């Protein structure tokens, strides 16, 4: 049995405006209810299969993001959510940034938008589960 049937999810806001994180939380409300795919929100990264990263990575949070990425047990997936996590967005060129998420940790799926709608976040998570690679 793979992580396809019960993907457990953890969030990390690496340094954005928190808008994308709120949209991620909206996936778990009765309107979008992702628990019907077996997904569960886990506070501890050691329980999670998929890490949702929002926001540009600032220097302060780089160490923490690496730490959390290492805490996810194999097999694991990372989804970068929002314009800041993909390119830097509004914060691009800032003095305190360590680059977008894929400069720090490997990313499987990018979900674009500022912020992206919950439907597209759910679609991104489903797509990263169909990925055949085992990293």
């Amino acid at each position, binding site marked *: 049995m793979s992580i396809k*049937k019960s993907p457990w999810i953890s969030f990390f806001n690496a340094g954005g405006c928190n808008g994308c994180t709120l949209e991620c939380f909206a996936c778990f409300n009765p309107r979008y209810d992702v*628990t019907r795919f077996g997904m569960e929100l886990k506070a*501890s990264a050691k*329980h999670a299969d998929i890490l949702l990263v929002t926001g540009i990575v600032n220097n302060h949070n780089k160490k923490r993001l690496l730490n959390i990425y290492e805490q996810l*047990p194999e097999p694991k997936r990372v989804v970068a959510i929002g314009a800041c996590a993909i390119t830097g967005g509004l914060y691009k060129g800032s003095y305190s940034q360590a680059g977008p998420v894929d400069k720090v940790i490997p990313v499987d799926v990018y979900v674009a938008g500022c912020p992206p709608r919950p439907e597209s976040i759910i679609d991104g998570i489903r797509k990263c589960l169909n990925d055949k690679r085992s990293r």
Partner: protein
Amino acid sequence: MIEILFVLLLVPLALVFEGVRRRIVARMHNRVGPPLMQPFYDIAKLISKKEFQNRNEIFNLVPYLALICSLLIILIIPFSIIGFDYDFLVVGYIFILQDTFYIFGAIASRSPFGMFASVRELLLMLGYEITFLIVLALFFYGAGATSFQNYNAEFAFTQLPLVSILLLFTGFVILRITPYDVMAAEAEISAGFFSEYSGTSLAMLELAEFIKNFVIYILLGFLIVGKTYALLLSPLFMLFYMIMLTSSPRYSTVVTVKTFLFLAALAFVDIFFLV
């Protein structure tokens, strides 16, 4: 030996029960909810995942010890395979032992979340474990029985209304249901005891919790409405606890401890009424 294998069939039943529980909670939130077989998928996935190595032996042993505790209880409670005199006290002690293992594991993990959970659990133990043991003993005293095998009282809540209410209250803490679930508060202290476990260890802990919760619902039916209706009416108790879970706030640790010390005092007073 065949009886023991028969009882082990209760383990998949406990997982289905957990699936039904999740569906009920989802319906109360106006959600669709996960599939009925979701606990099986979760356990299978967790076993297949890679686990983090930890050099602490206590930390590594705790999930298996907790699972053994749950399996021991399942041998005694619904069908009383290894029944003996005063086994209700042994059941009470096994529940305490399982919580003690969780505390050991959480402290050995050195996680601050685990530390918080174990300190809160130790505080709560002052109140609810005394109440739980007294309540168990009172039910057996009221029925004139010495073990689960010869417990024949039916509709005991008509004779022991106060004790039945006390039992429902201790159920809140043992099942970690909201008014008194400070030790497993998901929002504040991530997963409490389990926050540092991963892979197979976490699967064992989840399995132990599912079996323990299932047994508690049966135990409530067993004591309050009697042996014959225990399995039939256990979903009703689950429904009651799920209504409480979805509709009540979380009390602070201090309030919880005070409540349970008060309930322990009430249970003591109740002994004198019975004698």
